[in-house]
């Protein structure tokens, strides 16, 4: 363990975003102090966690100084995120900051434009602390598929942080960032949030603009927050959501007051437990923890009911067919011509495409492009892609029916505790199967929140998942907020 100098800096990193916001408003803390505390923390801890692909320093401090000056002069009001440094998953572009997507093919890519999510963070006065590690092109569930290095779980360095937003989740859990942006295509925010014991929210499809999110599967991808509390997640979501003309799938809804909605009443809320999710494949410790959380909600006046999601079993197959089909077509753009890696082997055009892609993509990405190409190819389209798209309709209808009986669904996020490093990576199908509880929300386009609900005696976090009808993120955050208070968990010691 590397010790930090005692006193303020380490205390600063313990504060939530809501607390930092108050300190900034009251001029008790400057943005420079906050940024310096985090940079110091990252220097001391990140060599062992490896959450960040790149950390900003000089320009970031300059931005913080400028902000402090305009706050002092009264030139600007403190927005929710003003002066607060946040980590951003490295598949979300920020102008002038290298964005690698965890891939060798984009190793030196510096985007000439800004994603809407980052633009909104910055417009609110938020600062970009650095870019976090991920499975290459967000394809994976452990962050071991990063083209650069694996990230470790801050509660147990032998375990994975989950993925693909593993860097963002680990950074928030290790107190190396107060909050972060991630992306979720089949669970990539919620699963690492569960593995790292933080709050992760996948918004309704269309709630947050995808402009500037490097596309994996366009009909499933969403950007969302990872944070230490439901309130902090609400603050980030409030800033980044809202209609964006730059994304044609962006919902025409204004951002909501998610923070104000946190204090609402949950009495009478019907909490549905999907029967299919508490079956034999689930680790009994997770089963028990989720049921304890359900009992805690019952104790504050919620009604717990059982619901059915009959098509749960075929969700993984439907999801992977659709996601990989979309991925194979989205990743066709990496040909080494306009940006990204171009092979130095001289050859005719097609050979240059092939060499550039072969040298730039890792195994899992190649595997997914291949499967996606296959399921879309002539003769197989109907059996795979068309069939999966019909099953997607059935899964969506399952949810619509379930939401007639329950206001919020609650269940496990992942069937098992965080995997040990190296455990799942050898068997791609095994890895896919672990996404069983998360992929359906993406297929249906509904919002989901993962939040911590217990720790094992060894200090490994256990997460649960809340799902709601389209655009009901506020309701999910309210339940997560109540759970935080009712469960009153005591955090064990980090492994760093």
């Amino acid at each position, binding site marked *: 363990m590397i010790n930090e100098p005692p006193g303020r800096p380490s205390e600063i990193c313990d504060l939530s975003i809501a607390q930092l916001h108050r300190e900034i408003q009251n001029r008790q803390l400057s943005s420079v102090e906050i940024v310096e505390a985090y940079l110091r923390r990252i220097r001391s801890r990140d060599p062992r966690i490896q959450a960040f692909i790149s950390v900003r320093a000089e320009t970031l401090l300059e931005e913080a100084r400028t902000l402090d000056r305009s706050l002092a002069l009264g030139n600007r009001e403190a927005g929710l995120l003003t002066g607060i440094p946040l980590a951003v998953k490295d598949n979300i572009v920020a102008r002038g900051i290298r964005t690698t997507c965890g891939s060798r093919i984009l190793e030196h*890519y*510096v*985007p*000439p*434009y800004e994603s809407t999510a980052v633009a909104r963070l910055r417009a609110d006065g938020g600062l970009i602390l650095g870019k976090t590690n991920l499975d290459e092109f967000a394809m994976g569930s452990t962050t071991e598929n990063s083209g650069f290095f694996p990230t470790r779980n801050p509660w147990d360095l032998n375990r994975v942080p989950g993925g693909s937003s593993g860097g963002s989740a680990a950074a928030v859990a290790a107190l190396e960032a107060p909050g972060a942006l991630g992306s979720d295509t089949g669970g990539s925010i919620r699963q690492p949030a569960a593995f790292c014991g933080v709050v992760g929210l996948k918004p*309704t*499809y*269309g709630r947050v603009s995808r402009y500037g999110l490097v596309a994996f599967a366009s*009909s*499933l991808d969403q950007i969302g927050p990872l944070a230490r509390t439901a309130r902090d997640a609400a603050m980030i979501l409030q800033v980044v959501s809202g209609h964006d*003309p730059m994304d*044609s*799938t962006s*919902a025409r809804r204004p951002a909501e007051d998610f923070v104000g909605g946190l204090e609402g009443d949950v009495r009478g809320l019907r909490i549905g437990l999907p029967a299919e999710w508490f079956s034999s494949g689930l680790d009994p410790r997770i089963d028990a923890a989720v049921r304890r959380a359900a009992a805690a909600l019952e104790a504050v006046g919620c009604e717990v009911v059982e619901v059915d999601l009959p098509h749960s*079993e*075929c969700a993984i*197959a*439907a999801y*992977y*067919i659709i996601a990989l089909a979309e991925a*194979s077509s989205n990743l*066709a753009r990496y040909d080494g*011509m*306009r*940006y*990204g*890696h*171009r092979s130095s082997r001289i*050859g*005719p*055009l*097609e050979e*240059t495409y*092939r*060499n550039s*892609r072969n040298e730039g*993509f890792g195994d899992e990405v190649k595997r997914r*492009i*291949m*499967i996606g*190409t*296959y*399921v879309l*190819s002539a003769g197989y389209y109907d*059996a*795979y892609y068309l*069939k999966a*798209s*019909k*099953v*997607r*309709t*059935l899964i969506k209808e399952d949810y619509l029916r379930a939401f007639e009986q329950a206001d919020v669904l609650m269940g496990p996020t992942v069937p098992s505790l965080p995997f040990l490093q190296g455990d799942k990576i050898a068997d*791609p*199908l095994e890895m*896919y199967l672990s996404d069983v509880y998360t992929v359906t929300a993406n297929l*249906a*386009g509904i919002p989901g929140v993962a939040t911590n609900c217990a720790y094992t005696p060894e200090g490994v976090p256990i997460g649960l998942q809340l799902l709601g009808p*389209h*655009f009901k993120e506020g309701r999910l955050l309210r339940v997560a907020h109540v759970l935080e208070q009712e469960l009153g968990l005591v955090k064990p010691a980090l492994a760093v």
Partner: protein
Amino acid sequence: MSITPKEVQRIAELAHLEFSPDELQRFVAQFQRILDYFEQLQQVDTEGVAPTYHGLAEIPEEGAVRPDRTRPSLAPEAVLEGAPKAQKGYFGVPRVID
């Protein structure tokens, strides 16, 4: 459905990817396992079910079109900055025809 190395080779060509004989062998086995797993979908009754191709909760009546007006865009130099090769305001690419 069972997949042959030849077929995997053909898919690789479509996807502009290449595999060594060793990689190909390993890959065919993984590919087969995943396709076998996908087979379970055939058991789901989808008679009369319309496919869903998007993630939207609601589709705006007016569609997603906007007025077609000229707006500022990125400067060509900014776009070319990330190009592996650029010259005279163009992307430099390998020879396409002899």
